[in-house]
């Protein structure tokens, strides 16, 4: 397929506006010329019709009745008036009461369909082969000796009319062309100045350090602000993912170093031991360490997943009860601690929030794992609506987190927890990341009925209807 030489999609805005304005001007110009010509014709017509009428009235006024006969004493002034159209030939005829020509050109006839009995009427015709314009006026004679209507026809050719019409048209067109050119220049100027901010933005982005992902200057025209907003949003997301990636790498390195070093120490130890009993206990320790290292790795990965999904996964409307039910039914914790006696506590009404199912499941699983590990049975998974917010929570009968840990929730807490090889801090960190990714928070309460409750609190979706 041949490539299009000119594509509207990528052509310059200046070009587009110039094209649009030119099209507008051409169409407008055609309309203006038609209008100007019509106006010019009409103006010329009116001006010279008055001339004709004046001359005709002059001639009609020079008619008198002498001895019972109409006599036309043609005045020079009538012809001087007509001579104002200097190059036009003059036609006139005065028709008597009996329909015979009193004076003038016999061949001039009154059109049959002109009608009427008084006043003045204009009509178009020919005069010796040339287009001409005529006026007919009637003069009523009521003398004892002569009674009837005398018709006066005066006409002239159209040279002066056409010249005037053309002159008016030309002047109007000249003005139109002039203003058109001015508009075109103005349009180019306006487009140039309107698009200047884009150049500025492009330059400021191009001039940036490759690692600089801070927002671009938002002081731009409203239309460009949309673009800048999107750009800034995109850069913020990029920034978050980059730092998440950085954190993941450094956390993972940091967290794995200690357990791996411990494993190596155990293994070194085992190499130098001959005692079978001792060896077995070392192997058992190595096994325990490996298991907890595996769990740690799982959590690290799931946290990376959660952080990643929070930014990138598509959010959807979901029912928190489904999440609770899924976690409950998966029954992973039963493998860890069948004695915990996990229960489900959900209501009849759906609790709808905007979030991502796998992330939430991960958060709840971690909370459950914490409750089983550090709390006391029985453990409950529940969903409720509190203060207009959706809560998915995990409750146990223990005393809960020490207040210092509660206050230190966050990255540093995670770090310290990790450095201690404590996976519960990591679990809370995951829950916190999930809650924040979906505009929610992590809440810890100690209900009056006793025990400790950790909840992910998310804003409710507007229930429909």
């Amino acid at each position: 397929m041949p490539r299009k030489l000119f594509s509207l999609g990528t052509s310059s805005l200046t070009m587009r506006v110039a094209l649009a304005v030119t099209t507008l001007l051409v169409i407008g110009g055609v309309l203006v010329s038609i209008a100007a010509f019509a106006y010019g014709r009409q103006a010329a017509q009116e001006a010279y019709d008055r001339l004709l009428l004046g001359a005709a009235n002059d001639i009609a006024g020079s008619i008198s009745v002498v001895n019972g006969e109409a006599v036309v004493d043609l005045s020079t002034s009538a012809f001087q008036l007509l001579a104002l159209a200097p190059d036009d030939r003059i036609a006139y005829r005065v028709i008597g009461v009996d329909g015979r020509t009193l004076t003038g050109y016999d061949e001039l006839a009154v059109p049959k369909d002109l009608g009427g009995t008084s006043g003045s009427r204009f009509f178009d015709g020919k005069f010796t082969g040339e287009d001409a314009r005529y006026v007919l006026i009637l003069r009523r004679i009521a003398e004892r000796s002569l009674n009837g209507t005398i018709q006066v026809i005066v006409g002239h050719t159209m040279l002066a009319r056409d010249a005037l019409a053309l002159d008016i048209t030309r002047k109007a067109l000249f003005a139109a062309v002039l203003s058109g050119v001015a508009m075109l220049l103005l349009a180019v100027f306006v487009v140039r100045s309107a698009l200047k901010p884009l150049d500025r933005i492009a330059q400021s982005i191009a001039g940036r350090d490759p690692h600089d992902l801070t927002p671009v200057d938002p002081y731009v025209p409203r239309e460009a602000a949309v673009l800048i907003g999107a750009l800034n949003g995109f850069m913020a997301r990029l920034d978050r993912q980059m730092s998440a990636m950085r954190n993941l790498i450094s956390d993972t390195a940091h967290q794995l170093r200690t357990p791996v070093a411990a494993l190596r120490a155990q293994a070194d130890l085992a190499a130098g031991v001959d005692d079978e009993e001792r060896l077995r206990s070392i192997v058992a320790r190595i096994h325990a360490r490996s298991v907890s290292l595996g769990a740690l790795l799982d959590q690290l990965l799931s946290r990376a997943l959660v952080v990643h999904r929070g930014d990138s996964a598509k959010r959807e409307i979901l029912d928190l009860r489904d999440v609770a039910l899924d976690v409950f039914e998966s029954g992973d914790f039963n493998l860890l601690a069948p004695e915990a006696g996990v229960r489900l506590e959900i209501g009849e009404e759906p609790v709808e929030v905007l979030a991502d199912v796998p992330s939430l499941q991960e958060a709840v699983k971690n909370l459950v794992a914490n409750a089983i590990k550090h709390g006391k049975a029985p453990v409950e998974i529940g969903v409720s609506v509190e203060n207009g917010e959706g809560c998915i929570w995990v409750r146990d009968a223990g005393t809960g987190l020490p207040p210092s840990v509660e206050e230190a929730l966050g990255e540093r807490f995670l770090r310290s927890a990790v450095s201690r090889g404590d996976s519960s801090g990591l679990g809370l960190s995951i829950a916190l990341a999930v809650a924040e990714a979906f505009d929610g928070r992590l809440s810890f309460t100690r209900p009056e009925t006793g025990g400790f409750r950790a909840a992910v609190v998310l804003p409710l979706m507007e229930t429909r209807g």
Partner: protein
Amino acid sequence: MRATLRKRMRGWVLFVALCLAPGLAKARAPEIVQRFGDGDAPRHLLIRSTADLSIFGQVIEAYLATRAGLAVTYQQWGSNDLYDDSVDGCHGGPDPADMVMSSGVHQMVKLVNDACARSYRSPETENLPAALRWRDELWGVTREPVVMVYNRALVPPSEVPRTRFDLLDLLRPSLSRYAGRVATYDIERSGLGYLFAFADSREAATFGGLLESFGRTDAIATCCSAELISGVADGTYLIAYNVIGSYAMERAFGDDRIGVVMPEDYTLVLSRAVMIPKTARHASEAQAFLDYLLSSAGQTELQRARLIMPLVNEEGAEGERISETALRPIGLSPTLLVALDRQKREQFIRRWHETFQGTRLPSAEPQ
């Protein structure tokens, strides 16, 4: 000068009686026919004109000297006959002229208004002032004052009329010796006379007074410039009123019995009108001749023939001069159509007859 001119003329001169067959009203014929140039010249030009051959012939001669291979047939006509002939030519009559030049400019304006003329533009025609050009179909080529001619021997210098008022004063005494010895054109027979009288009537109120004086003193109305001037020369008339200046000056130059006055109250100035009929067979030749007439060479020839007269303080001005404001050029404009309006003409001629020859009944024939 005229003798040399005649010697240079080749071809033949034909005098034709004005009326070949008495009673045949429509019979029209040129007064004189003159052929210039070689008989076997490849190109030909037929000019019909009211200008006297004796005056205009030298202009044609001068033109032929610049243009080889051209033969010109010049027909001298009376203005009314020429008009009628041109109307015929316009409506498909036989043998149309290639160029018509007439002193009856009102008749020429009418011909142009009736679409009988051919349009032509050239640098020469564009140079003409607007008053001497109409529709690019009619051009004023000459400049001739309308003058009073008097007999030098019989009119004492103190009585020579400088204005129309002087003429009125001469005619006022009941036993004026000018009674019956003042002549002017018969406006019915002379298209030129009619035009002058019509122009006078538009120009000033003196015209009515003049007509009345002419009528009271039995002034003579006669035809044609030549008759008027001859009459003054031989003493039949003491004064001739409204004579075309070119002929008067031409005669006065060689005849010291004749004096010429340009009236100081106002002097009409006539420009003979040239038109190229739309039916002309040799239009391009006519156009070339027109350009010549309007060129500086042609203008010089016309001046030599006294068809262009210096009027106001110009170099070469002869005789008396008048102020520029007193000049009244008869412009080529459709206003002149009024002069040929049939009712207007009837009324004008009737009025002229009634006052001029009070006893004579009007015999105006409609045109």
